[in-house]
């Protein structure tokens, strides 16, 4: 369904040009959840933005191809991009505080992609939006429909974002650190929700995170990135149990976990 090969992104406002992503390749099948993991500066967010045609002016794709459902994404005009974004590929972000528009109602934001990409009238749009809100676990959707983002908690906002991203029934959703800003209990709920939506709608998810624990809990395959390069890729189970690259080993060793207490002697 999605075929990225040899993708290279450069920042061209500095000399010499800075390679943010180098020779990145990835293929995704419908309904799959694939993870991209890396630390800050690894280029994982750049890759996500490229996939939505949202790169900043200074960042240029200098090599590679991105083919989505037979369409060459790199040859799309800005107009054609608008038809892909939101309808075919949608995105959710890390910061639920800033990624919803504070002056629009929840209902309005849930309907946005229907408004842009379908001919549904207001009534059926609202019906679809309310049904979707119910689906993402927002109780009393009728009441929330007219609310503004600041009246909601972080977890609820993230649910709204997921609902708004899925309401147009896209085949791919890019999720950039969607649970990083959330508390553990809310994080677990949101991950469960994403898995459930993935089963229900067969939406493929490209899941970007710095946290291997999250990747392990939700993805089937993973690519490990470091400073723009893919150091390792494969099934999550394989990569985590038998890492090949030095960097992956280092990353795995650094994950905080309960099998390894760093505090050896105890004080008192």
């Amino acid at each position: 369904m999605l075929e990225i090969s040899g993708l290279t992104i450069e920042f061209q406002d500095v000399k010499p040009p800075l390679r943010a992503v180098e020779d990145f390749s990835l293929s995704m099948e419908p309904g799959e959840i694939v993870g991209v993991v890396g630390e800050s500066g690894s280029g994982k967010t750049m890759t996500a933005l490229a996939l939505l045609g949202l790169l900043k002016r200074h960042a240029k794709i200098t090599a590679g191809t991105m083919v989505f459902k037979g369409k060459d994404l790199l040859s799309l005009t800005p107009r054609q991009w608008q038809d892909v974004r939101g309808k075919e590929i949608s995105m959710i972000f890390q910061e639920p505080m800033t990624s919803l528009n504070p002056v629009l109602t929840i209902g309005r934001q849930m309907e946005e992609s229907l408004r842009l990409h379908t001919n549904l009238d207001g009534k059926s749009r609202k019906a679809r939006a309310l049904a979707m809100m119910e689906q993402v676990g927002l109780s009393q959707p009728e009441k929330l429909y007219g609310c503004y983002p600041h009246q909601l908690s972080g977890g609820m906002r993230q649910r709204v974002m997921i609902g708004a991203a899925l309401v147009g029934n896209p085949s791919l959703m890019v999720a950039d650190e969607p649970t990083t800003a959330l508390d553990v209990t809310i994080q677990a709920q949101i991950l469960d929700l994403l898995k459930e939506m993935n089963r229900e709608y067969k939406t493929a998810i490209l899941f970007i995170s710095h946290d291997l624990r999250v990747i392990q809990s939700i993805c089937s395959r993973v690519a490990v990135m470091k400073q723009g390069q893919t150091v390792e890729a494969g099934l999550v189970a394989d990569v985590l149990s038998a890492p090949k690259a030095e960097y992956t080993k280092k990353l795995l060793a650094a994950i905080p976990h309960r099998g390894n207490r760093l505090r050896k002697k105890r004080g008192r």
Partner: protein
Amino acid sequence: MEVRRVCAGYGRGRKYRRILTDVDFCLYKGEILGLVGESGCGKSTLSKTILGFVPVESGQVIHHTSRPQMVFQDPFSSLNPGKKVGWILEEPLRMQKIPAAARREKAEAMLAKVGLDKSFLNRRPGDLSGGQRQRVSIAISLIQGSRLILADEPVSALDVTIQRQIMELMLALQEELGLSYLFISHDLDVIYQMCDRVMVMQKGQVVEEGDVERIFEEPRHPYTRSLLAASLSYRL
């Protein structure tokens, strides 16, 4: 250090909102005490109260040693962006009227302790990575000779590999100098790796307290259980 039935909150008069209710604990010498809880549970308020930034409504905070120092969560706002690292490190010594040469010497020695060479004295926080800044923050907290450090999410904003380095540094310094830490984190695994004892906080109250192994293996309070159930732990 002892915290005795402390209640504290923000606002004056009618607008007063109590955040902490009857928080009561001891931090022993050489101990690492973890404090875990979700956002808004009062973890940060507790550390601010201990430091005197938030007034106590009732109860008291007793410091048996010198005043505690703090390592902050966000390494980007905890260092003055306009000053050089050396200047910042020397500021508390300047307050104690220590002569310039001795100040510089001490700052250099402290940087070495946290694994940075003296070239960092002349660099500004803006040129440093998150991990390097956190090392500087640790150096600042130690330079006045305080042996009690409050660490409010000191590794949460860092990449995992850097996180690990800072955790190891803090543990090494603890052993070398006999420090006590109140280590605040939302990450249960980090708490498990670092701490001797842990307190679980919910809505301004400590709901459970005990040795790390005990809390993780047989949690008693329902809230602790739900936290543990929700947290993802890396499995081999």
